[in-house]
C-alpha cells in the first residue's frame, strides 16, 4: 500500500488533466507566449511525477512501462531530426525553416512589430515544439519513474 492519503489522491486526479492541458497549451503556443516544447514537456512530466508520488510507483508501473516511454522518446527525437532533415530536402540546408512564408498551414508571417498573431504562424517551429515536447515528456518522466522504481527495489540486486 503505497501512495499518499485520499485527499491528495483526489486532488491529484483533479489537477492532472488540468496540468496536462496547460502543458499542451504551453507547447502549442510556444511561438506566441513564453514557453515552448521543453517548458511544456517539463510541465506535463511534472504532472506525471505528481501522479507517481500520490499513487505510488507500483500503480504507475502497472500502467506505463518504461520501455514504451523509451520508444516514445525515440519517436519524438526522430520526428525532430526528420523535420530538420526535411529542411535539407525542401529548402536547401539542414534546419531550414522551409514552411515559413508559404501561407499554408503554419506558413503565415505575422505583421512585423505587432502582437496580433495566430497559432497558425511560425513555420516548422510549432511542429518542432510538439516533437520536442513529446520527447521531453517521455524522457523526464522516464527518468523519474526509473529512479523511483529503483529506489524502492532496494537490495533486490546483488
Amino acid at each position, binding site marked *: 500500500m503505497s501512495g499518499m492519503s485520499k485527499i491528495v489522491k483526489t486532488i491529484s486526479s483533479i489537477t492532472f488533466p488540468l496540468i496536462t492541458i496547460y502543458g499542451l497549451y504551453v507547447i502549442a503556443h510556444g511561438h*506566441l*507566449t*513564453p514557453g*515552448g516544447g*521543453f517548458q511544456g514537456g517539463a510541465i506535463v512530466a511534472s504532472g506525471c511525477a505528481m501522479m507517481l508520488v500520490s499513487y505510488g510507483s507500483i500503480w504507475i508501473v502497472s500502467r506505463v512501462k518504461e520501455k514504451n516511454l523509451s520508444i516514445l522518446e525515440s519517436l519524438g527525437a526522430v520526428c525532430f531530426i526528420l523535420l530538420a532533415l526535411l529542411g535539407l530536402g525542401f529548402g536547401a540546408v539542414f534546419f531550414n525553416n522551409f514552411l515559413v512564408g508559404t501561407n499554408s498551414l503554419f506558413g503565415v508571417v*505575422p505583421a512585423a*512589430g*505587432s*502582437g*496580433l*498573431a495566430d497559432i497558425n504562424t511560425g513555420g516548422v517551429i510549432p511542429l518542432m515544439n510538439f516533437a520536442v515536447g513529446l520527447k521531453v515528456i517521455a524522457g*523526464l518522466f522516464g*527518468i523519474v519513474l*526509473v*529512479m523511483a522504481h*529503483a*529506489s524502492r527495489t*532496494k*537490495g533486490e*540486486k*546483488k
Partner: protein
Amino acid sequence: MIFNIPFIAVAALILIGLYAVIFKRNLIKMVIGITLIESGVNLFLITLGYREGSIAPIYTSSPGGIMALPVPQALTLTSIVIGVAVLALMLSLVIHIYRHYGTLDVRKIGGPEE
C-alpha cells in the same frame, strides 16, 4: 549604481558550489554543489542579457519598448536541460555507489588503487 550586485551574486554562487565540491564529504552534497554552480552560470547568462527598462523579447499587443537580449535566454534554456540530465545521471550513479559501499562518505569509497 548598485555595484553589480547580481554579478557578485553569480560569483558567490559559483564559489559556494566549488566550496561544496571541494570541502564537503557527502556525495549528494557534492552533487548539490554542482547544481549550484549550474544555477550560478545560468544566472550569469541571464544577467548578461538584461537591459535596463526593457521588456521581454516577445511581441505582444502591449506597447513595445527596447527588448532584453534573446540569445542568452535561449542558451540558458539549453543549459537548464543539460543540468537536469547531468543531475539525474549523477544521482543514479550515487545510488549505485551507496549500494556497493554502504556509505556516502567520499573518503571511504574508492581510495588509492592497490
